[in-house]
Structure formats: C-alpha cells, structure tokens
C-alpha cells in the first residue's frame, strides 16, 4: 500500500461505501464513541487523509479538533446523504478568521444568497 495514497472514510455507511470503491479504508460510525474510535484507529494506522461526513464530524467535535492538530493527518468533512449542512463552510470561515483576523467571506456569502 505504501506506493498508493491511503485514504480513510468515516460516517454513515450509505455515504462512505462509495469510497471503498476507490480503495479507502471505510469505517461506518453513527455515534460519538464510534466516530472517536474510528478516527483514532485511522490516525494510529497513519492514514494521512480522512474523509468524514458532516453529520459524523458534528458528533465528535473534540476528536476532530485533536486530529486536526496532528501534522500527518488531514480530516476533510464531506456532505452527507441530505447534502451539505454548512459545517464545512463554517470551518473554512473559522480558519479564515483565525488566519487573517477578519471574516472576509461574509460578502461572498451574501452575493451567493
């Protein structure tokens, strides 16, 4: 596996099964504990890229923040079955505020609306 990009996917089984098709390690998780354990397992196996459904990410904010800090793991939220609930955008916005000290995405959002 070393020559391939290793990926993981965590969340509702219906969503993440598709990732299995492209060789990702998929772990279905629908409770906070399951999500925490899944993230820990992937991180321990040094999986560098983890996709997580927004609904699952919302359940375990503490675990998400922990693995975000880890330099060799990237946690990417993806929309669930019902489409995006704004979690991803919210995170991007928070990071932008942290980086430059102002919410420059406001205008863009309004334009979109």
């Amino acid at each position, binding site marked *: 596996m070393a020559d391939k990009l290793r990926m993981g996917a965590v969340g509702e089984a219906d969503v993440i099964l598709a990732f299995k098709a492209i060789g990702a390690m998929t772990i279905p998780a629908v409770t906070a*504990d399951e999500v*925490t*354990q899944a*993230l*820990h*397992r992937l991180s*321990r196996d040094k999986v560098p890229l983890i996709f997580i459904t927004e609904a699952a990410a919302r359940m*375990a904010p*503490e*675990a998400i*923040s*922990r693995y975000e*800090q*880890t330099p060799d793991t990237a946690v990417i939220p993806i929309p669930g079955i019902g489409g995006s609930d704004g979690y991803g955008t919210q995170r991007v916005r928070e990071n932008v505020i*942290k980086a430059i000290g102002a919410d420059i995405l406001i205008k863009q959002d309004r334009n979109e609306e």
Partner: protein
Amino acid sequence: MAQGKIIKVAGSLIVAEGMTDARMYDVVRVSRHHLIGEILELRGDKASIQVYEETSGLGPGEPVESTGAPLSLELGPGLIESIFDGIQRPLQRIYEQAGDRITRGIELPSLDRQKQWAFSPKAAVGDEVSHGDIIGTVQESPVIEHRIMVPKGFAGTVKSIHRGLAKVEDTVCVLTAADGKEQHLSMMQRWPVRQGRPYREKLYPTSPMVTGQRVIDTLFPIASGGVAAIPGPFGSGKTVVQHQLAKWADADIIVYVGCGERGNEMTDVLKEFPELHDPRTGETLMKRTVLIANTSDMPVAAREASIYTGITIAEYYRDMGYSVAIMADSTSRWAEALREMSGRLEEMPGEEGYPAYLSSRIAEFYERAGLVQCLGSDDRRGAITAIGAVSPPGGDISEPVSQATLRIVKVFWGLSAQLAYKRHFPAIDWLQSYSLYSDNLSEWFTDHVSPEWNELRAKTMRILQEESELEEIVRLVGTDALGWRDRLTMEVARSIREDYLHQNAFDDVDTYTSLQKQLLMLRLILDYGDKGQMALDAGVNLSDVINMPVRERIGRAKYVPEDSLENFDKIETELADQADALINRGGY
C-alpha cells in the same frame, strides 16, 4: 567608670563628651532616668550612643555613665516560654510591674532570680571539665532539658557539685582550676550579643528541616542548619509563612523575633502557640518557644539589637546540642533601623540611604546560623536554621536589603503578589524560588522517605515549568493551538498547583502535611497524569480524561487526616479502575 555629659540629642542618638575610658559597644546609662544605651562611635572623648529607650525630655548637660561591659544577654533556665524585648528585658514581668507601656529606665533582670530549678548533675566530683562541657541539666519545660554548660574562661576539676533546687545565680558547681584557685559556676552565664558563640567545627548540613508545608518540603527544602529568606510585598503572606514554620518545623527550639512588625502579629503568636500542640511531643508549642518582640511602635534602636538577641539565644541552645530555628520578621525593618541610626550618626549613605555596611551586617547575622560540632567533650551537634522575612517596598527585590540577603542565603522562597491576589497561599512562586540544598538533601529523602521522592520532585518541577511555557503560547495564539498532550500537561499542572501546592494554614488537617503524606499526594497526582496520557494514546477524549470522577477525590486528598493514610490506596485503586475503564471504552 567614665562619666560623661550629654552635648547633643538627636532622636535615639545622643553624643556625650568626657567618655575617655569608654570602649566601642559598651553599654551606658544615660541621664538620671538611667536609660540604656550603647556606644556606636568614638571620636576623641566624644561618644555617639544609641539609646534603646525614648529620649524625649533629655537635654545637654545630663550625665552618661559607662557600665564598662558590652550589651550582654543572661543565658540560663527560664528563657523558654518567655517574651523579651530587643535587649532581653522580660516583657511579661515588666507588664506585671509597670503596666501596658514599658516605663523608662525600668530595670528588671532578664531571668527570674527567685524561681527555683531542679538541678541534676551530669559531672561528678573529680571530673576534668572545660568550656562547653555539660555539668548538669534542668527540666526547663516538659519538652526541653536545659543543659548547663561550663562558660567561657572556666576549666578545671570538679570539686563539688550541687543536686536539687537552686536559683539561677546560686553556685551549682565549684571547680579547682589548674592554678589551684576555686571557680564558682552558677546556672546562668552572660554573653555579648554582637559576638558569635564559639563552636568546634562547622559542618555541611545534610538533613532537611521538615516543615509540613508542601511547597517548601517538596520543591524548596531547607536544610537543618540552613539559611533562607522570604521576600514578598505587603499582604503576600510572609508573616503567615513564618508563623507556619514556627508552628510546624521539626526543630527542638524556636526563637521568633518580631522585629518592627505589627503588634497584633505578636499577639497572634501569643494567643495561638499555647493552644497548638506539637505533633511530635504532644505538648503546646509555647513549651519550646522563645519570643523576642520589638513591634513597630517600640524604640528603633532596640530593633537593631533584637536580631542579635535572638541569634545569641539560638546559639546558646545550639551549644546544648539542639536544633534551633530562628525566624526574623522582618529583616527589612531591622535594616531600616540601621539606616535611621546611620543617618543620625551622619554617616555617608549608601544605596537608598542604607549604610555602606548593610550587607556585612546582614551577612554577620546569617553567618551565625549553621550545623556545628559543639564545644565540649561529648560529640554533640547543634544546628541553627535562620529564616528571615524581607519586605521590599513595592515587592521589587532589586532593592538593597533583598539583594544583600540573596547573596548570602541558599534558599529563596519568593512570595508573589499575583499568587496572593489569586488567593493561592502560601504564595511561594515556584518559578522564581530556589533551594541550593536540594542536591545535598536528595540522599536523605531517598533513605528516609522513598527512593522515588527525587524523581517525583523533578517531574513536578518539569511539569510546572512546561506549564509556564505553554501558558506563553496560549497567551499568544489561544488554547486551540495546543495539542491534547499539552492540554493534559496543563491540567496536571493545575492539579499540582491547586491540589498540592495550595495549602490552607487555617485548616486543622491541611495546615501540616507529613513527608509520607506529601509523597502519597504527589504520587497520586502524577499517576493521574501518566494514566491520562495512556488514555489519550488509546484514543480517549481529553474531556473524558479531565472529567474522571476520581479527580474530585484527588482534589480532596489533602484533607485526609494523617492517621488514615490508607485512604490513599483506595483513591489509587479508584484511579486505576476509572482509567482502565476509559481505555477499554476508547477501544484499541
């Protein structure tokens, strides 16, 4: 003796002429009131004299008479449980005779002349004795056996020795000196305060003075025979720390010098000590305490002497083979007294107006402490541990008194106003304070407490150090920037601060912690840290580690009484169980 005449009066300093026979540091009697004074400076036949009493009403022309002897203390049975002023006048008996205020010129012997003491001889007729040998003992208080020693200048063969009741001035032993003359010894001897009492050899201290104060015993221990300073701004708890040490330190004798501080603080000592019981002897603390009081409203010149009076009494008990602790609160007031006298003497002022000899005077005081091999034919050892409070104005320790003190002392317990403001007491700042004895004492702790003591201590220091570094990061970029391991470290550091270093002097159980309990408490907190890290590694959430129910019990461990230390095993088991449960739930 020489009789002179006053030519100038400036506050507590007077200048007299016609003092041709007088010598430096001789005690003089001033005016018809017979006020006690001491010669500080001689120029031709003019002497500058510091007067230990109020000088109002004095004028030029009044007589000054030298006693021909330096300021000396009376050393003998009756010192324990007494309260003296700066020149060893017995305040209790002055009060009985003259009421609330010390009447000017009052003359009372320091030791009660009428009291009978039961003298039991230790030397036998025919024994050869010399300076420092013990000739007999007196039970001075239920816990202190007063050992009567041969004074300086006496030596010979015991010709006769008394047994039974005697007053302090009665002859208890007659010696035949080498030249055939008879020497009469009483239970009392005199010693000039400004001269250190002799000893055979000074030794390097290797055992700690256990104080029952966790931050002191664990992080910044003081050796028995060591010197320490407690600098701190007003209200940071210097006096409470000094009182705690006076109450709980495992010294045989405590000499407490209240030097220029509030009268109420001495009242606290007088009220509390007779009610508190020494954990080792079961007797009240007063039975091993000598108090020297020169409160802020008492004459300033006597304040200068009070420190020497205290250390001379301490040396006397050290010579008997006791471990003595002397607390001086505060040496800054004493230095101010020096400054005041120096100003009146018209000396060239040094830094901040203090005399140029400030640091040598401070050194003279602290150098009289130490662990020594006493004089005398038995190999007894005695120790003086000196602890001085320093009150730097505004809490800035760059001022001369603090700096001069820091150059000499080996233990520095820096009190911080910030900690006091946060109600963290004792407010000893763990980042600023140090103890240069800790390396020498590590062996003692390994042998007498536990082999893991030094390791736990080092780990605690490391965590506290790490916390301060992490706090810097948090201040710059916020808590979010910290990883979980670091956040747990901060949590463990918080536990060390709040559950361990914080100690309530006014709680019956928490006021004193034995070394064994300190070890158990520290081990518990550090075990929590280790188990917490293991849980994090196993994928447990930080909040679950922080909110483990056992933490409540860790926090309350300080209130576990000394006689039920087995409770710590239960808490340890609970901690292990809860950590295992978390790790198992965490999964991997």
